[in-house]
């Protein structure tokens, strides 16, 4: 019996090599996605081994526009603990009602008609 094993080719990308060890900015994700798609690979492995830090905005953009919607299989490897926690937060995606009214809180809002009144108030603060 002859077995033929067909393996999908896999492109391995070191994300820190492309973007640096700090992952930030939503636009950088869009750039990265375009670059990855140009490889025309069916499976991409993204290695996070050199990553030190990421903003939530980056991870949100990465997850939402890249991981969820890419037409390719993406595997993430060596994801640092903090970055994984960020992915988990984004995946859990707190549903917020986009309430269009702001609850009145008279104590929090102050209106001023003169600069001297503003400055008197600022002087009075524990700031």
């Amino acid at each position, binding site marked *: 019996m002859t077995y033929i094993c067909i393996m999908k080719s896999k492109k391995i990308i070191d994300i820190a090599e492309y973007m640096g060890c700090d992952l930030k900015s939503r636009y950088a994700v869009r750039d990265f996605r375009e670059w990855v798609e140009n490889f025309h690979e069916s499976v991409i492995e993204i290695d996070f081994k050199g990553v030190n830090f990421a903003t939530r905005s980056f991870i949100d953009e990465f997850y939402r526009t890249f991981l969820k919607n890419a037409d390719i299989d993406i595997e993430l490897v060596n994801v640092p603990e903090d970055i994984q926690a960020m992915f988990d937060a984004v995946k859990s995606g707190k549903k917020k009602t986009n309430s*269009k009214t702001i609850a009145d809180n008279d104590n929090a809002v102050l209106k001023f008609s003169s600069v001297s009144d503003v400055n008197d108030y600022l002087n009075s603060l524990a700031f």
Partner: protein
Amino acid sequence: MKIDVKISIPDDDFLFGLQEVLKIIECINQCDENEVTIVFHEKTFVTPIFILPLLVYEKGCNKKLIYDNKNSYLNTICFSNGGLKSDSFDSPMRFSEKMKSYSKKTFIPIINFSTDNEFTTERNMILTAIENMIASRLNLRHNITYGLKYIVEECVDNIIEHSESERGYIFGQFYPKKKFLDICIADNGITLLGSYRKMPSNVYTDDLSAMQAANRGISTKNLSAAENRGFGIVTSKKMLIDGLNGYYVMLSGSALHLKNRKVDKYLLLPAHIKWQGTIIAIRIPYVDNNNFRYIDFVE
């Protein structure tokens, strides 16, 4: 008309610089002339919450402001030129070399960066270089450095995503003996209100309500998956104030927001006091924060 600036802003008083800017703006408004000269005298010492609000105000002012700068510090931070333009250097490496000349100072110069998406990679490298320089200069622990990076980067990303400003600004001063740093990040774009006005079903019609909405995490991006938007400001503030016992000030249009552990206020400024842009000023203490972990604040 000439306005003489002979102030020395005490570093303990975070809001003092803002008060001085408000006085200057008041004078400018009261002046009938179309040209106003602001004279900075030699012994003047100012803070980030003075510098960037004045810079942004000037960009949106309908009068011509001329600076007569007799102050060497303001020259060093590149104030008269509107800051050090990061994209005027051949490469991020050249910019980093320039920044090395500030590595022993207690400030970074005003950095004037392009918001053009074409410069995304360069901008990110430059911001990383600045953050790392600050961390190294102040010998910040990793946990504080990541908090600083998070807060700064989320502010910058908001400028890129929402402000429609061609330029963004960042300026920082450090106080090693008192163990805190002040950073100000600003744009001269469409303001928070301008950003909300672009939403099809916008309900916010004034600077104050727009500012309150932004600080509640209501995103201007009306996308189907927008439940994960709007966390930048909220998380950054929690990290800064609850986590690091810091101070947060936001200015946009005629609205001002102040927050620390004791104060949480929104102020509507007099109508003639208006910034065409958004400015965020923060103070980050970096002592007694050994237990701080930025990831604990990410929802």
